[in-house]
């Protein structure tokens, strides 16, 4: 440690150099009175030297009283150790703005702050403990990180989306069903899975063409979205004309009601289907499986059970809901 030669004497160019630093600098004496402020800080605070220098910091910035900055400043001055205040945990402690922009609260610069108290021996030779507050503007970094995160979220969303129906795809289902099962076990709440299939969809495509088939799938998907719309519901296209709903906090009985609402909604679309043996409109079959949080069943068991129930619904003449625990005719 060699404190004295660093502090004395000041070269003649030092104040010029300090005035050109692109960071804010404040030096406080041991009574938190401002003894020095640099040009960058004044410009970004919109203040004149005489409004800041020789004034207590908390008089210049009364909004800092009882703030976290005050707490950590006091702690740093008491312990004599430097302190970091991150932008993430304290976005904008000082009211600083980009010069020239309209001064509103949402335009505060994002700040990364370092509080550096003069340490033991140097404090003795200076007669008291001065503290340097250094403020860097990290607004641009924050904007950049936010953009990157938004991009990543968007790409992730796209990777899990079925292009035709805008429902989730198989990948989303494979990711979210095990999570839903785990959370059902953890909180001891029910979970249900419904598997839907459009009745005689191959004949529909053969008769009306694939474009009409795509349109039909999109309309059915919309009904499914409208019925299963709680935030944690997941609806996905399992493959071809098979659609799946994963319904957390839903008992088997409630899931049957939702499945019937979907079937009814699709019937009400009244999409003509001349080659269906089930009705004159497009209809669905559905299989419902309920998860028992006390069982050791896996997500694959649950999908398998829903699939078997769906098979039973088809076997019994389609356009109906069957359950994995016994059939309930529509």
């Amino acid at each position: 440690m060699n404190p004295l030669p660093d502090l004395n004497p000041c070269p003649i160019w030092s104040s010029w150099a300090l005035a050109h630093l692109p960071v804010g600098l404040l030096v406080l004496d041991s009574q938190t009175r401002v003894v020095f402020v640099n040009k960058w800080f004044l410009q970004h605070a919109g203040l004149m030297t005489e409004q800041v220098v020789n004034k207590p910091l908390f008089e210049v910035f009364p909004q800092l009283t009882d703030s976290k900055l005050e707490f950590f400043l006091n702690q740093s001055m008491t312990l004599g150790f430097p302190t970091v205040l991150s932008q993430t945990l304290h976005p904008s402690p000082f009211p600083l703005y980009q010069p020239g922009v309209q001064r509103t609260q949402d335009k505060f610069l994002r700040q990364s702050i370092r509080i550096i108290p003069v340490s033991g021996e140097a404090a003795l030779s200076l007669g008291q403990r001065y503290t340097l507050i250094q403020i860097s503007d990290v607004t641009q970094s924050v904007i950049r990180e936010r953009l990157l995160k938004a991009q990543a979220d968007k790409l992730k969303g796209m990777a899990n989306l079925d292009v035709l129906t805008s429902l989730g795809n198989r990948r989303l289902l494979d990711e979210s069903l095990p999570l839903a099962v785990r959370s059902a076990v953890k909180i001891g709440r029910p979970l249900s899975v419904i598997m839907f299939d459009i009745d005689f969809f191959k004949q529909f495509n053969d008769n009306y063409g694939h474009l009409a088939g795509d349109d039909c799938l999109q309309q059915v998907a919309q009904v499914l979205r409208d019925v299963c719309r709680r935030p944690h519901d997941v609806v996905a296209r399992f493959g071809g004309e098979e659609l799946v709903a994963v319904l957390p906090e839903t008992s088997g009985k409630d899931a049957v009601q939702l499945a019937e609402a979907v079937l009814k909604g699709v019937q009400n679309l009244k999409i003509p289907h001349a080659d269906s043996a089930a009705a004159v409109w497009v209809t669905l079959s559905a299989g419902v499986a309920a998860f028992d949080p006390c069982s050791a069943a896996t997500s694959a068991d649950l999908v398998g059970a829903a699939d078997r129930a769906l098979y039973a619904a088809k076997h019994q003449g389609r356009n109906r809901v069957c359950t994995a625990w016994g059939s309930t005719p529509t």
Partner: protein
Amino acid sequence: MNLTEIELDALTEVFNVGVGQAASALSQLANATVRLSVPKVEMISKQNISNELTSQGADRICAVRQDFTGVLNTEAVLMFPVQQSLQLVQLMVGDEVPLEQLGEMEQEALAEIGNILLNSVVSGMADVLKMQFDGSLPTVELGPVADVLCGNGQMQEKVLSLQIDFAIDALQIQGFLVFLLDVESIDSLKTTVRAFLKDLE
């Protein structure tokens, strides 16, 4: 040169006072109750710490480092498995969105959290043992355990290691605080702890 069981027990108590102060500062920051405890203090080799962290499935760790100089010179390194450091930042920020990576901003938040902890622990020790230290600003480092611990030196070198348990709401996080000490510094630590124990008699 090594510290005896009694000396290590004394240090465990001293460090628990320090983390107690850190816990109240972190609670303020998180607007939640943060509890910290130091269940044990040991002199162990870097290799042992590396093994312990690796056995927790943490091949990559996140470290906050600070230098402290004075009667003894030490580099303090606070380490978490990367996944746990993400959870810690998330809890402190109160963010519900799960983080997948430690970006620039998260690393800085971690520097702040580590800074609070290291300052409290070292000042607690300085108070009780009547020592004086100067501290540096924290830096954050990500990498394999061996790289972080062994910038220079051998994996067989012994360090003073504190296991630190964090409890925030329902979540438990375990970290390690390691003090890298040279031989002279271990000597002066031992002398200081002995003097402290003698005063208690």
